[in-house]
């Protein structure tokens, strides 16, 4: 599953909330989160934690800050193995070396003894992935796993994630702002805008017959290699609405090229078409159906 949207659309907050990581005095939440048949949305933090590692795991965007800079890679990797799986130190260390090999780090033994600062961004992200899959989670949240990386390294990491997902039989939620990443590495896509789900469909269907004007605008604003050089790029004017001061109506209305009067006064409901395509628009591209 790919989760797509601009900065501030709520992608990361949604994932963190689903994992029960958003707790505290200033957070108000409602609704339910069901994981593997269990309702976990209302559990206290300590109980949700039991699902971490073996049930759910998360890869964070910035591999530079996700690792503890003053602990060796081996110690960080072994930590969850000892705590979650009750391994002894020796077994955990051997398993850690296997995990590094699994994420295709050359010379895993030497890497175990290194500190994060001695590794490149791509290598650190591999370590973060190894940490996340250490206890064979059933569901992996990958929050912008390649945004901080170079394009060649990005391609390697995305391939690695796809292979791991298949080999370990995991479900994966891939959060990204890049529709290019989504197109090649997901089966199903959810598009978010201003904290709302605005479109949901199988990946191929989304790209061949998108219904939301927002998704269309997002796709058009990506610079494409097959477009001639020079000239102006299609763009979405304006910016995301201010979340502290929401206006009535569809949140995309002020930027939408197809906007009509009704869009400015009513929030469109989430509609499910006969073919299972879900969208939130009064006047979808290609019409209802």
């Amino acid at each position: 599953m790919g989760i797509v949207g601009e900065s501030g659309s709520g992608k990361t907050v949604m994932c963190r909330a689903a994992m029960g990581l958003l707790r505290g005095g200033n957070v108000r939440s409602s609704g339910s989160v069901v994981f593997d048949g269990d309702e976990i949305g209302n559990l206290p933090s300590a109980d949700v934690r039991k699902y971490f590692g073996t049930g759910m795991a998360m890869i964070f965007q910035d591999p530079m800050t996700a690792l503890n800079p003053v602990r060796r890679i081996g110690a960080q990797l072994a930590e969850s193995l000892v705590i979650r799986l009750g391994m002894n130190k020796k077994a955990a260390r051997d398993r850690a070396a296997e995990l590094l090999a699994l994420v295709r780090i050359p010379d895993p033994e030497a890497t175990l003894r290194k500190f994060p600062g001695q590794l490149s961004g791509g290598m650190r992200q591999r370590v973060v992935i190894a940490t996340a899959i250490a206890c064979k989670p059933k569901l992996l949240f990958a929050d912008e796993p390649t945004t901080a990386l170079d394009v060649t390294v990005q391609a390697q990491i995305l391939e690695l994630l796809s292979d791991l997902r298949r080999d370990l039989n995991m479900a994966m939620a891939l959060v990204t702002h890049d529709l290019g990443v989504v197109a090649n590495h997901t089966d199903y896509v959810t598009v978010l805008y201003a904290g709302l789900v605005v479109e949901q469909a199988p990946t191929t269907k989304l790209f061949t017959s998108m219904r939301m004007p927002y998704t269309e605008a997002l796709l058009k604003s990506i610079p494409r290699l097959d477009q001639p050089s020079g000239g102006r790029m299609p763009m979405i004017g304006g910016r995301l609405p201010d979340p502290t001061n929401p206006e009535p109506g569809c949140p995309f209305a002020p930027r939408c090229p197809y906007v009509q009067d009704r869009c400015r006064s009513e929030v469109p409901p989430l509609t499910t078409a006969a073919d299972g395509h879900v969208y939130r628009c009064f006047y979808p591209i290609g019409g209802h159906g």
Partner: protein
Amino acid sequence: MAGSGKAHLRPSSDPILSVEDLVVEFKAAGRESIKAVSGISFDLIRGETLAVVGESGCGKSTLGKAILRLIPSSGGSVSFEGRDLLALPDDELRQMRPAMQMIFQDPVSSLDPRFSVARLVEEPLAIWARGTVEERSKRVDELLEAVGLDAHLVRDRKPYEFSGGQCQRISIARSLALEPMLLVCDEPVSALDVSVQAQILNLLQDMKERYGLTMVFISHDLAVVKAVSTRIMVMYLGKVCEVAGPDTIYAQPRHHYTHALVSSIPLPDPNAPRVRTAIEGEPPSPANPPSGCRFRTRCPAATDKCAVEEPQLTEVAPGHFVACHHPR
């Protein structure tokens, strides 16, 4: 790859900027030094946009800073408007500064958080004592309007009140205040969302036409570069791999590294044929670069010759230069 050579220079076209054999070294631990830029030559004709492309650590940002002499170079020459910037005494260099400006990658941290927007944009004008206070204020309004901000709304606000895209607009207004001839943009849209990215790229194109700018556009994103550039230079580990026009370089990349870069870009089309990773691994350390061609350790076509002899830039088609012993 990653070769030397000057076959791609065009001295007869009266370049506004001409860089030859530029070397920038950084001291590393002990007596080692790292050559971030290792003998690079290029030139820029008035009104052109040269894109410099490569992975992190290839020396592209260092190159951008070195040509404006924001960091010292250890060899080569940078000729701007016919004067060698590297040899210029400090006071004369300072007089040249208004003609060459830079836009940085992170729009939020490149603006002083305590300054109001009006003061940020006015600062270069005030430093150079251009016009009276009223004239400067009028010019600030013009600049803000030119970059698509409502001057009356934004003048007295501070940078933290703005989004990344708006901060980048403020940076652009600031860099254009002194009407530069040369603008070096170092990853100006990398920190921005795709939708905002398109807005800023279009703005830069508009500003280029309106003020007759010549630009160096540094980016790691080939797709972004294609939209804005007239010529592209691909770098790897401090050396040049390939120089060509944007359409040629994507349609027929001749260098194996360029090909790998182009094929690594994820296409927003699920039916596009999946290409497996074209190259493995990551660039070696610039402290200890491979002999001969620097790309040979990751190159699918490397031979013994590549380890011994450094390839030179040669013209493989009109306006298309490649530094490779075995071009594709």
